[in-house]
């Protein structure tokens, strides 16, 4: 069955520290991979996506993610966290082709940032 696992429910980092949020997926083939961020009271905003090609993808707000096929992982990273990055982060997978994305989401990781 298709699934996405985000092992860390809560993470706390200090402002300026580096960040890595983990995401592992189970899928029948190479999926499309996404990271979304949800700030309190807000909808989900796409940070970045991977379809093919270079396995290191750059996104908005200084985030990047690396697709590792051998580990079925798509971890999100940021070299220096800002207080405004406090939010909930969701990893998602979607099917190839078909003209639409039925996204399967992980349970999310809530990030807190200490000043």
């Amino acid at each position, binding site marked *: 069955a298709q699934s996405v696992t985000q092992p860390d429910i809560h993470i706390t980092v200090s402002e300026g520290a580096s960040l890595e949020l983990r995401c592992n997926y189970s899928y029948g083939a190479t999926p499309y991979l996404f990271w979304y961020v949800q700030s309190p009271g807000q*909808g989900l905003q*796409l940070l970045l996506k991977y379809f093919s090609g270079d396995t290191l993808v750059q996104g908005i707000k200084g985030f990047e993610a690396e697709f590792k096929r051998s580990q079925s992982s798509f971890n999100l990273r940021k070299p220096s966290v800002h207080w405004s990055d406090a939010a909930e982060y*969701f990893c998602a997978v979607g099917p190839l*082709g078909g*003209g*639409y994305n*039925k996204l399967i989401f992980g349970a*999310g990781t809530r990030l807190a940032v200490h000043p």
Partner: protein
Amino acid sequence: GAGVSQSPSNKVTEKGKDVELRCDPISGHTALYWYRQSLGQGLEFLIYFQGNSAPDKSGLPSDRFSAERTGGSVSTLTIQRTQQEDSAVYLCASSLSLAGARGGGEQFFGPGTRLTVL
């Protein structure tokens, strides 16, 4: 509109009542999705519309849930005889449908409707 809008933003209802949740997608977006975000459950796909048709309803949890879309635009998610386990945030997303394109179109999400069933 500039983004996906949903109404109401909050809905409190009594068990057994029917509720309707509304989604206004981004103008010109032909694909529309409903998801449910329950506490501790992450986001679950409910239904997908392409135009006014719903080729994928596989995520609707029971026959108490239904959705329609009219004019290729506004969509309504209806929950009949609500139960406490229906309490969740219901999110709507829309995208340009790029049929045949890998990955389809990026989904843009609305702020959600928080449903509380007492």
